[in-house]
């Protein structure tokens, strides 16, 4: 079989950069294949995808060596327009790649540029929108759509060129779990029923691994491993973990079991496969230790208390309906729910970004109704989703102490008291950024930026930290790094409130969960018991962690959820006897 895409010894260095992004990279993609590319952030995945349709090096210029063939044509000596009909590339940021105001125009954009007959384009528009499940949206404005809808329009807008190959470069990074799953399902349909060759770059791979034919592992500009998902996971999972790449939770468990001596007929990479492999081999021990990581205290230990909070947007849409809950001091609470369920609106009230009415929100037992944002920042540290939005200084060190400078009203050229300097140094050491203290915050890596923004927000010594989707688009290594930092802060006695979609992280690190659905609070309790509430999970489109699904299918009668690998391993007391 002829490869549809073939790279031979490709080395590429961007203009103005010293080290190359792609290093002697060779690969083949065959027609009709479904390929997943994984690798740590900054390993060159995006650059690789852009070589397939000639953006690199035709638009993004640099020094290129090697040979790239797409459909037996030499990309390096071809015009971009001859390639675009072959390859459809969808990017991570939905806002950046949609350049028209109306959905219809967006889908028509490419064929119009390629001088396709208008009648034909009309047909393609309705066909492509139907494929991605967006029929009827023709005359809607792009900027009014949700993130998931935008990405679907993005996919439709490349499908309308009728490419044989579709590439999604981290296209689900900004989406909630349900929207992500929808996109995965869509790609499966396009691959299976319409015969498209599909290449996906993904970081969250629990729900996609078992759908693909082949996995390519990339590190530092090279393909370091490749094979079927089974092969890659069974043989090189330690390599993946070390790189800081997410691996399916089920496979992580399987590897642990394998190391304990359990034999698999087929190394499991999905919940179904694991259930099949483990049924009969794994029985239940009644004494699964709970993940409840803290004891409930009574008395005036409330950090935040919300009573009967309602909120309507200026345009009349109800955003919050009678929300009541309490967050205890020193707890680690996560706020879950689909995009648009009211999570962000809720936490904006806690911080006074939206001023709450009298008596509705108490922080440290004080009504915050009359307090402004600046006053609130003494009590709560609020870390925004995009760390860059909060950067205010030219160096990492100035960034981390900025809050203190403002508080003590020390001007830019005045000398800092030793006490503040020490505090800054300590803070930077805690997040391993001390040796970067003179760099500009904007040039740090994604993970470093996040850690810096957490630390900088906390410099005033606030007791409560709110984080808005801090792990979005992060690889395993930096997400874990950040969560460890939160855990450390919790151990120092701080209260952590985190909005997130990352259910595996929630299970591993958080104690309690609040679930929002259409402006209503539908769950408030421990993370563990959340996964026994089927109707809550369904309503809020929460995707259960694979481990919990596995344990439910293995022990349907068990009345507690098993949500971490450690717990699962402890669910069997006689592992060795069975083996």
């Amino acid at each position, binding site marked *: 079989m002829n490869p549809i895409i073939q790279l031979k010894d490709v080395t590429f260095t961007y203009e103005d950069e010293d080290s190359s992004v792609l290093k002697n990279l060779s690969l083949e993609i065959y027609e009709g294949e479904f390929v997943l590319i994984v690798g740590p952030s900054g390993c060159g995945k995006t650059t690789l995808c852009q070589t397939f*349709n000639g*953006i690199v090096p035709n*638009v*993004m210029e640099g020094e290129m060596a090697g040979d790239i063939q797409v459909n037996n044509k030499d990309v390096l000596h071809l015009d*971009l*327009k001859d390639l*675009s009909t072959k*390859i459809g*590339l969808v*990017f991570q*940021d939905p*806002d*950046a*790649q*949609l*350049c028209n*105001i109306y959905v*219809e*125009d967006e889908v*028509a*954009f*490419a*064929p*119009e*540029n*390629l*001088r396709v*007959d*208008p009648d034909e*384009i*009309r047909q393609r*528009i309705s066909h492509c929108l139907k494929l991605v499940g967006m029929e009827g949206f023709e005359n809607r404005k*792009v*900027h009014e759509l949700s993130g998931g809808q935008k990405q679907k329009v993005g996919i439709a807008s*490349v499908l309308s*060129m009728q490419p044989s190959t579709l590439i999604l470069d981290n296209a689900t990074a900004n989406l909630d779990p349900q929207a992500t799953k929808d996109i995965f399902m869509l790609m499966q349909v396009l691959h299976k029923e319409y015969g498209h060759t599909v290449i996906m770059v993904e970081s969250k791979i629990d729900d996609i691994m078992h759908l693909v034919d082949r996995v390519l592992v990339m590190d530092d500009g090279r393909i370091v491993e490749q094979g079927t998902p089974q092969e890659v996971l069974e043989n090189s999972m330690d390599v993946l973990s070390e790189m800081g790449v997410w691996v399916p939770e089920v496979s992580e468990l399987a590897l642990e079991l394998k190391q304990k001596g359990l034999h698999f007929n087929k190394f499991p990479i999905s919940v179904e496969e694991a259930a099949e492999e483990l049924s009969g081999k794994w029985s239940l021990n009644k004494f699964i230790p709970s993940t409840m990581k803290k004891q409930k205290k009574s008395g005036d230990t409330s950090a935040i208390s919300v009573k009967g909070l309602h909120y309507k947007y200026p345009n009349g849409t109800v955003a919050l309906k009678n929300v009541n809950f309490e967050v205890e001091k020193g707890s680690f609470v996560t706020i879950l729910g689909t995009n648009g369920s009211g999570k962000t609106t809720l936490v904006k009230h806690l*911080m006074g*970004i939206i001023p709450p009415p009298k008596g509705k929100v108490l922080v440290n037992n004080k009504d915050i109704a009359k307090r402004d*944002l*600046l006053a*609130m*920042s003494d009590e709560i540290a*609020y870390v*925004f989703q*995009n760390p*860059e*939005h*909060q*950067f*205010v200084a030219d160096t990492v060190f100035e960034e981390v102490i*900025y*809050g203190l400078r*403002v*508080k003590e*009203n020390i*001007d*830019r050229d005045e000398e800092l008291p030793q006490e503040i300097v020490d505090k800054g140094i300590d803070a930077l050491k805690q997040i391993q950024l001390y040796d970067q203290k003179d760099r500009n915050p*904007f040039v740090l890596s994604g993970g470093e930026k996040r850690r810096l923004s957490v630390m*900088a*927000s906390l410099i005033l010594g606030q007791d409560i930290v709110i984080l808005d989707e801090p792990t979005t688009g992060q690889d395993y290594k930096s997400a874990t790094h950040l969560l460890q930092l939160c855990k450390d802060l919790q151990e120092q006695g701080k209260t952590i409130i985190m909005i997130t979609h990352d259910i595996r992280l929630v299970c591993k690190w958080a104690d309690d969960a609040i679930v929002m659905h259409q402006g209503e609070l539908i769950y408030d309790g421990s993370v563990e018991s959340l996964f026994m509430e089927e109707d809550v999970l369904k309503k809020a489109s929460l995707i259960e962690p694979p481990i919990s699904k596995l344990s439910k299918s293995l022990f349907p009668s068990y009345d507690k959820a098993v949500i971490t690998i450690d717990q699962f391993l402890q669910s069997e007391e006689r592992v060795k006897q069975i083996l």
Partner: protein
Amino acid sequence: MSIAFQYQENKSFLHSVDPVTKLVWMACVSILVFLYESAIPQLMIFLAVFLTAIIFARLSFLFLIRGIWIMLLFGVGFFVLQVILVPGETLLFNVGFLNIYQESLDFALAITGRLVTIFTTSLIFVATSDPRDVVISLTQKLKIPYKYAYSLFIALRFVPTLEQEAKVIESAQKIRGVGKQKGLRNKMENLKRFTMPLLMGAVRRVRVTANTMEAKGYGAFPDRTYIRKISFSAKGILFGIAWCGPTIYLIFNRLL
């Protein structure tokens, strides 16, 4: 003003007229206001434009006032200045030591009316023309290369996104304590703080946008096809004639 000065989705006679004809209409109005230098004809032209807006574009009185009130304020200032500075002969009355002449009053009214009329006309044009139709008619009818016409259009697409982001940055930085330190120098610093993330985000986004557009064949050929076609309609032509006819007649009337 920013809210009023954009396309208002609606169905009206003027909405259905193609942008090119509306440009012709704007040209007519502009010629007419420059033909006259006294108040009465200017007032009549303004009334004609205003009535066109209300009857043919179905824009509400309130919307129009909201759209042009800044211009009106400016107009009043301009008017007062003209009344004082333009020399005249027939003394009307005097305010303190200022003599107000009939000729200067007339001229000032005319000049101010001219400004307000032109402004109102462009407001009506923007409010009744879908930006994408404007772009398409620029390329289809006026034969402007689509690469230039489109750049304007794409800028429009990103205005709401940038607005949203600016709001987020503002509160994100306020929480960090930006704005607590007073003084001009701190204000300048804060401006830089605000612009940096906005700019960084925009630059990154523009690069992705450029890449996607290239990948979608933008600029690959000198021309392209369009799913929307702008055509001159009978009633549009009638509307154009209804304005062009009198305009031409009045030009000859004035100049000969």
